[in-house]
C-alpha cells in the first residue's frame, strides 16, 4: 500500500470573475481515511472538488488525485474515483435499472451486488423512473451508482444535501459500511456535523475560501474551547486574546470561545479578575459553529427600552 496521499493540492486557487473562491489551498488526504471537508455555503468546497476531478481549471496551483494531475485524469484513473454530485442530478427518463445498466457499461469493476444492495437499502424499485423519485431516493440511487464501480477513492459533494433525517441516516450508514472495507478513501463535504462526527477521521475547514483547519477530528474538538467567566458585576472589556473566535456577553457573565487554549490564554483571561473561570466542553457542532460563526463580541444585555417594548 502506498504512503502517497490520494489527494494532494499545492497552492490551488480559483476565481469566479474578480472573486477568489478558493485561495492557496494546500491539502493532503491520506489513503484509507474518511476525510470531511466542511465550510459555510459559498466557501469553495464544491469548487475544490470540481478542480480535483478536472471539471474546472484552477487559476493557480495544482492538484493531483491518485498520483495523477487532476487536469489530465485518464479514463483508468477516473475508473478508480467515484464521484457523487451535490444535487444528485441524473437522466430523469431512465428507470433505476436502466441507470444501473447504463453506468455498468462503462465501469469494468462494476459490482451488481453492491448496486442492488444500496438501492435495496433505500427501498428503490428497479422499474421506477428517476424523475419520479424523491430527493432522498435519488441520492440513494446516485450513491449506488457511485459505489457499485467499487472505487478506490470516493468523492462525495454534500451527499446529504436536502435529505430528510431518515434518508440521511441511510446514507451515513452506507458510508460507515463502506469505511469498514479495505483501503478505500472517502473525501466528502457536508454541512451536517453530526454525520461528520459519526464517520470522519479528519476534518478540513474552509473559511471564506481559505483553509484554516486540517487535522484529526478530535484535535479540532480539543482545540476549540469555550471558557465561561463569571464576574461580580458587568464583565469588563475584553483584551486581545490569542486564538480568539467569539465572546458572548450577558449580565455578569462572559463566554469566550477560542482555539489553542493554553496557559497564556488563561493568564490573559485571569487578568480580567473573574469570580470564576471554567472550561466548558463543546460538541463538534458547537465547535464548528463557533469556529465559522461571526467573529467578535455579542451581547445579550437588553437596554431598558427594549425590555419594556
Amino acid at each position, binding site marked *: 500500500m502506498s504512503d502517497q496521499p490520494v489527494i494532494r493540492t499545492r*497552492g490551488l486557487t480559483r476565481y469566479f470573475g474578480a472573486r477568489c473562491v478558493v485561495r492557496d489551498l494546500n491539502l493532503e488526504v491520506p489513503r484509507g481515511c474518511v476525510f470531511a471537508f466542511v465550510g459555510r455555503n459559498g466557501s469553495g468546497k464544491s469548487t475544490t472538488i470540481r478542480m480535483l476531478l478536472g471539471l474546472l481549471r484552477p487559476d493557480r496551483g495544482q492538484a493531483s488525485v491518485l498520483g495523477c494531475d487532476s487536469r489530465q485524469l485518464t479514463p483508468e484513473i477516473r475508473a478508480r474515483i467515484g464521484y457523487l454530485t451535490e444535487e444528485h442530478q441524473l437522466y430523469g427518463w431512465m428507470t433505476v435499472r436502466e441507470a444501473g445498466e447504463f453506468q455498468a457499461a462503462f465501469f469494468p469493476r462494476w459490482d451488481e451486488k453492491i448496486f442492488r444492495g444500496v438501492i435495496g437499502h433505500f427501498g428503490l424499485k428497479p422499474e421506477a423512473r428517476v424523475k419520479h423519485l424523491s430527493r432522498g431516493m435519488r441520492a440513494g440511487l446516485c450513491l449506488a451508482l457511485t459505489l457499485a464501480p467499487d472505487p478506490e477513492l470516493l468523492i462525495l459533494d454534500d451527499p446529504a444535501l436536502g435529505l430528510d433525517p431518515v434518508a440521511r441516516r441511510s446514507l451515513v450508514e452506507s458510508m460507515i459500511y463502506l469505511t469498514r472495507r479495505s483501503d478505500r478513501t472517502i473525501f466528502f463535504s457536508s454541512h451536517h456535523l453530526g454525520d461528520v462526527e459519526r464517520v470522519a477521521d479528519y476534518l478540513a475547514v474552509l473559511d471564506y475560501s481559505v483553509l484554516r483547519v486540517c*487535522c484529526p477530528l478530535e484535535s479540532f474538538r480539543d482545540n476549540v474551547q469555550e471558557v465561561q467567566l463569571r464576574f461580580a458585576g458587568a464583565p469588563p472589556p475584553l483584551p486581545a486574546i490569542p486564538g480568539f473566535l467569539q465572546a458572548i456577553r450577558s449580565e455578569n457573565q462572559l463566554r469566550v470561545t477560542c482555539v489553542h487554549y493554553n496557559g497564556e490564554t488563561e493568564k490573559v483571561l485571569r487578568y480580567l479578575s473573574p469570580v470564576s473561570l471554567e472550561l466548558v466542553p463543546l460538541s463538534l457542532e458547537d465547535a464548528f459553529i463557533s469556529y465559522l460563526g461571526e467573529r467578535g463580541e455579542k451581547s445579550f444585555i437588553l437596554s431598558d427600552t427594549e425590555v419594556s417594548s
Partner: protein
Amino acid sequence: MKKLILKELREQYKIALIGLAILTVMLSLEFAGYGSHLRQVMSMAQGPSESFQPLLKHALLVQVSIFCAVFGMLLGWLQIRAEKHPDLWAFLVHRPISRNIILRSKVVSGFVLYAAGAGLPLFGIILVVSIPGNVAAPFTWAMALPLISIFLVGMVYYFAGLLTGVRKARWFASRGVGLGLGVLANIFLFVMPEFWHALLIIVVTGSLLALAAWGSFQTGGYYRDQPIAGKVALIVTSSVSVLVILGLTTTFVVNLALSRGEYTTSYYQLTKEGNIIRIFRQGFDEEVVDINGQTVLDEKSGQKIKQQDLQQPQQLWATTKGNGQRGSYQQQSFFNITRFFSAWRVKDQALWYLTADGRLVAYDVITRRFAGILAPSGGGDGGMANDSRFLLPPEYGPGYFNNHQTRGVLASARTAYLVDLEKRQLKPLFTVTNGDAIQGFAGARSARLEAANGSVLLLTRTSIRLLDVEGRTKLHLPYVPSSPEYPMVNFFWLEPAGFAVRFDPDHLLSEKSGGKLLSHVKWVNPDGSIRKAQDLPKLPELIQKNADRFFVSLLPPIFPLWSLNESYRVWSGFRIVPAILCAGIGWWLGRRNNFTLKAQIGWGVFHLLFGLPGFLAFLAVQEWPPRESCPGCNKLRVIDRESCEHCGANFAPPEKTGTEIFEPLTYQS
C-alpha cells in the same frame, strides 16, 4: 459508446420527431399546391420554369435551407445544453472513457437524428418526384443535388450548434460565432457552379466547426488548455464568422441607413429614330444625355427629357452564349433549373420543355406523364449528331416562358425550324451552307411588335440574318465584330425606316481586355447597306457606395487583392489602417494580461493579417483573467500566474488569523 449513443437518441428523439413533422408538412403543402399551380400556369400560358419541378423550386429550396439550418443548429445546441448543469456534465464526463468517445457518440446520434428529422422527408419528396406520373416535368437524379447539398449544410450548422452550446464566453453573443460559418456555407451553396464545389465548402466549413467544437469539448468550453488544432479552428471559425457578420451588418444596416440613393447606374439606349443616348441614374435622380454628354432636351417644351418619355424601337435580341458555353446561364449554379430544362410552350394539355440537351419533350398535365418528344432528327432516338439537337434560345436563360411572346422558332446548328406543336412537326425555315453554323437565334411574336412580328433573327458564325416566317431572308449582314468577343446582338427596327444592330462584348472577355472591347452599333439602310458605324465610349465606372467602401476597408489584409473588383482596390489599401490599429491594441492587451512573447508575436501577426475581424475574434475567444493589486509593487497583476509579472513576487499566502489548526495527517488503518 453504444450506450451513450442510445442515451442521446432517447433524449433528443422528440426534437427529431418535431423536425420530421414540420418538414413533412412543409413539403406536403408544397406538393399539394403543385396541381393548382400547374393549372394556373397552363391557363396563363406563362410562368417560371422552376415552378414545374418542385425539387428545383427556388422558394422551396430557400425554405428547406432555413429549416435545415435551424434544425441542425438546434439539435447540436440541445445535445450539449441538456447536460450543461454542472452535476449532469460531471456525470457525463466523469467516467472511464475519453471525451473523444463521448463527443463521437453525441455526433453519431446527432447525425442519426438529423437524418431522421430532415433526411427522411427530403428522401421522400425526391422519391415521389422520381416516380413517373407525379410531376409533369423531366426528372434526372442530378436534380436532387441541390436538396442533398442543403441537407448536408445542415450538418455544418449542427457543429455550429454544438460549439455554441459547449463554449463558455465572456460575451454571451460570442458563443454563437460558429453560426457565421454556417451562414457562409449556405451563401456559397447557392452560387457554386457544381455540386462538388458545394461539397468541398461543406467539408471545409464542417471540418473547421467540428474541430472547434471538439477542442472546446475537451476543456468544457474554455479556450485555455485546448489542443492547438482546436484553438486554431476556433480562431479561424470566429474570424470568418465575424467577417460574415460585419458584411451582413454593412449590407443590411449601414447600406440602408447611410447610403440610400447612392446607387449609380449608367447605360446606353437607342431611340426609335436611331439616336444614342446615355441614361445616368444616381439614387432617385436621373439624367439623359447624348453620346457627347450634352443634356437631351425635349424639342417642344425645352425641358430636360426623362427616360420614360423616350420611345424605344422594337427589337430582337439573340446571343451565341446560350449553349452550355462558359458564362452561359446553365453554368451559373447547379441550383439553376435551366441546367436541366426550360419550360418552352403550352399546347392543349401538354407542357413542352426544351431540355438542356436540345430536345423538346412534352408532359401531359392531366396524367403528368411523358407525352412526346421532338428533335431536329425527327425523334429522340439517341446518337444525336451536332445537327440533331436544338440550340438553346436566349429566353432559355431566365427560365421563364411566355406563350404569347415567344415565336415557335428553334434552330439546330444548321437549320432553323418553325415548330408546329399541334402536328408535332418541324418545318425547316432556313439551312446554312458552306460549313457555316447557326450559333444563336430569336423569334418575335407579338401584336404589339408590329414591325418585328413574325421575324426571326439568326446569328451564324459569319452573318446575321433576318428571316420572315416563311424563311425568306429580309436582311443579311456580316457578323462583324464577331463572336466569341461579341456574343450578344440586338436588332432594332428604326422609324421611319432602316435598322440598327448593336453588338455587345462578352463581359468576361471585356474585363480581361481591360475594357478595350467596346459596344458597337451599326445603322443599316432598308436595302442592307451600312449607313454608319460607331463604337460606344466606355461607360464611367459605377460609383461605389459608402457602405461598400466601408466594408472593403474592413476586409482582412490577407484577403486576396485579385478577388476584389478593380474599382475597390484603392479602398482596399485602407485595410492596413484598422489592421495596424488592431495589432497595437492587441499588443497592449497582451502586455496587460501578461501574454508570453511568443503569444504576443503570434497574435500581432494574426491581427496584421486578419485586421478587424481577426481582432474581434481574438476578443471573443480569449479568456481574460481578473487582475489584483500586487503587494510587492502595487501594480495590477493577472491572477493566473504564479508570480507577479512586474516585480516577480509570489502571491502571498492567506493572512494568518491565529485560529488555524493544522496537524500532520497520517492514517493508520
